[in-house]
C-alpha cells in the first residue's frame, strides 16, 4: 500500500477496489446509517464559497449541504428512472432527466442550467 506522499487525504490511497477514483475522506462505512456523507466536503465548500454574497459557512452547514446534494441526486435519479421505465429502457438517458425536470415542480430551478 502506497504511503501518502504528503497529501492531506491519505485515505484515498486505501481504497481496495478499482473505484479508487472516489475520494471519500468523510465516509465511515462501518455500520449502516453511520455513513454520513460520501461527497467530499471540500468540494461542497468550494461551491459555497463561489457565491459572492456568502461571507462564511460553518462546518455543519457544509455537511448538511453535502448530504442534501446526495439526497437530491437520489431523488432526481429515481424520478428520471420513472421516465425511462415508461420507455421500457434499462439505461437512463439525458432526455429522461430533461423530462423529469419539466415534470417535477421542485426541479424547476434547474431549467436552462444544464446546457
Amino acid at each position, binding site marked *: 500500500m502506497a504511503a*501518502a506522499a504528503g497529501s*492531506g487525504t491519505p485515505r484515498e490511497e486505501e481504497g481496495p477496489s478499482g473505484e479508487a477514483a472516489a475520494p471519500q475522506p468523510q465516509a465511515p462505512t462501518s455500520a449502516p446509517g453511520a455513513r454520513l456523507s460520501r461527497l467530499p466536503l471540500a468540494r461542497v465548500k468550494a*461551491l459555497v464559497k*463561489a457565491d459572492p454574497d456568502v461571507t462564511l459557512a460553518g462546518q455543519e452547514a457544509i*455537511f448538511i449541504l453535502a448530504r442534501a446534494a446526495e439526497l*437530491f441526486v437520489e431523488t432526481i435519479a429515481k424520478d428520471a428512472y420513472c421516465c425511462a421505465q415508461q420507455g421500457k429502457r434499462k439505461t437512463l438517458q*439525458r432526455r429522461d432527466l430533461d423530462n423529469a425536470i419539466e415534470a417535477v415542480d421542485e426541479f424547476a430551478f434547474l431549467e436552462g442550467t444544464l446546457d
Partner: protein
Amino acid sequence: MAERPEDLNLPNAVITRIIKEALPDGVNISKEARSAISRAASVFVLYATSCANNFAMKGKRKTLNASDVLSAMEEMEFQRFVTPLKEALEAYRREQKGKKEASEQKKKDKDKKTDAEEQDKSRDEDNDEDEERLEEEEQNEEEEVDN
C-alpha cells in the same frame, strides 16, 4: 481552474455510486445523463447556498449555519429532505464530538510515551491527525475569507 461556479463538479465516481444505489439493479445510466445529474447537483448546492444565505442575513448573521440550510430546503420545496437531514446532522455532531475527544486522547498518549517507541504507530495516527488538522485549517480558512 473553474471558470463558472457551475463548473465546480462533484466527483463523478461518487455521483455514479449514489445514482446506482438509488436505482434498481441492472439499471444503467448514460454518460450524458450522469454528467447532467452531476451538474444539477452543483446547481442545487449553489441554489441552496443562496437561499440559506438569505436566512442568515435575515438573522443578521454572517455565517451560514445548519438551520439556515434546513430553512432553505423548505423554501425550495424539498421538505422531505428535512427529517433525514436533521438525523444526519445529529449523527455528524456526535461523530465530531467523538473525533475531538479521540484526538485529544491521542495527544495525551503521545506525550506520555516515548517518541522512538511509537514512531511506527504514530505515522498512522499522524495521518489521522493531519486530516483533522486539515479540517481545522479549513475552519481557520473560513474565518479569514472575507468576500
